[in-house]
C-alpha cells in the first residue's frame, strides 16, 4: 500500500476507488423501452451513464463501478425504462 504525505494523489488515481460499492439499489435499463433521449445521462450527478450505439439505436448504459444508486435516472426517465433493483453481490 502506498501512503503519500497529505493524501496527495495524481489525476485519475481516484478511479481506483470503485465508489459503486456503496450502492444498495442500482438502475436497470429496459433496452426495449429506452428511447435514447439522454435525460438520464444529463441528470446523473456522478457521470455514471453513457449513451451507446447498439444496432443503430442510442441506448443508455450504466457504469456500475461508480453508480451509487441515487435513483435520479429512474425518476427522470420519460419512457419509464429505468427500474431500481436490489444490487446482487456475487
Amino acid at each position, binding site marked *: *500500500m502506498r*501512503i*503519500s*504525505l*497529505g*493524501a*496527495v*494523489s*495524481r*489525476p485519475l*488515481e*481516484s478511479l481506483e*476507488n470503485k465508489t459503486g460499492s456503496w450502492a444498495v439499489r442500482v438502475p436497470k435499463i429496459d433496452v426495449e423501452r429506452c428511447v435514447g433521449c439522454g435525460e438520464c445521462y444529463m441528470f446523473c450527478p456522478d457521470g455514471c451513464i453513457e449513451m451507446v450505439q447498439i444496432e443503430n439505436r442510442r441506448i443508455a448504459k450504466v457504469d456500475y463501478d461508480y453508480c451509487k444508486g441515487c435513483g435520479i435516472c429512474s425518476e427522470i426517465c420519460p419512457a419509464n425504462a429505468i427500474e431500481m433493483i436490489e444490487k446482487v453481490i456475487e
Partner: protein
Amino acid sequence: MRKVVRGFYAIAYAVKLCRPNVICAYPITPQTEIVENLAEMYANGELENCKYITAESEFEAASILVGASAAGARTFTATCSQGLILMSEVLLNAAGMRLPIVIVNTNRALSAPLSIWPDLQDSMLLRDGGIIQIYIEDNQEAHEMIPQAYKIAESTMFPIMVCMDGFKLTHAYEPVDLLDQETVDNFLPPYDPPIKLSVKNPLTFGSYAPPDCYMEFRYKMHKDMINAKKTIEKVFREWAEIKNDWGGMIEYKEGRTVLVALGSLISTIKEVAKEMGLGYLKVRTYRPFPAEEIREVLKDCDNVIVFDRAVSFGYEGVLTIDIRNALYGESPDIYSFIVGLGGRDVPKTLIEKCVSKVMSGKAKRYSFEGLKEFEEVLY
C-alpha cells in the same frame, strides 16, 4: 534593534522577516492589528514577493492559505476565538494535507456569553487536530518564535499555531529586541516543499481514503507528530545558539511543589514561585505533548499544581487532564485550579491562595478560583 512595540508589531515584524508569500486574514479582536501592521508593510512595498489577500471570513482566509500553501507558498494568518473555530474545518484539513501554514492565535474566550478577553478555550478546541501548538509567555518570545515556527512547520509539514494571550500580550507595549533580516535569513531557508500544486502538475491534496487505507494515513500523521518533538527540540536548540535560549519544549525550575501553566500566566506564576521557593513548569509545546519530558521532571516532586484557563465542560481543566495522564502511576499529588476565564485577572495573591489551599490540605481534585458570589435568576 531594541524598540518599545506592541505585541501586534512584534509578531508582524517577525512575519515580515520570514519573507511570507501569501498573507490572508479576516479581522477579529484582539488579533486585527497584527494583520493591519502587515497590510501597511504590504502597502508600503516592504513585503517582497508577497501577496496580501483580504478575505470575507476566516473560513475563506484559511481556504485561500490551503491553496497557496499547496502551491508552495509560505503562508501566514492570525485569528482567535470565533474566527479560529470558523477556520477549524479548513485547518483540520490543512493538517491532514500536511500544509505548513503558520497561524498566530491571540487566545480569546469563546462565546457564549460573548467575550473578547483572554483565556485558552479557543485553541484547546483544536488540540486534537494534528496542528502543532506552542504557547507564548511574553512578546520577546512571541517575536522570536515566528521564524522558529516556520522552520518547525516546514520541517515537519504540519500547520502550527503560535498561541499568545490576547490583550495581555497583543496590546501590551514592551521593549522587544527586534531581529534583523540577516539573522532570520541565515536561520530560515526558503520554503521548498517536496510536493507542489501547479497547472502543469495537477494533484489532489487530501483525497478520498476508504476504510482500507484511511487508518494508515492517520497513523502516519500521529507518528509524524510524535517525531515532530525531535524536530521542535532541534529547532529550539539551534535558535538558542544564535539568539535567546528559551528552553526546550518545557521550561522547568525544580521544587518539591511545582506550579504548572501555559501562556502568559506563567510569568505571574514564576514570580510567586520565586517568592515562595517553589518550582514551576512552563509548557511551551503543548501538541505534540512532551509527556516523557514532563514525567521525568515531575515524577519525584510532592505536589503538582496546575493552573488551567480552559475547561473540558463536564470533566476538569484541559491541561490538568494531560498532566494527570503524563504522571499516571507516579507519586505526586496533582491539584488543579481553573482560573482567569474570559480575561478574569489572575493576580499573584490568587496564585498564593491556591498554593496555601494545597499546603493546608484544603484543596480538592480541582476547583474554580477567583469566583464571585452570584445569584441565579431567570433573566
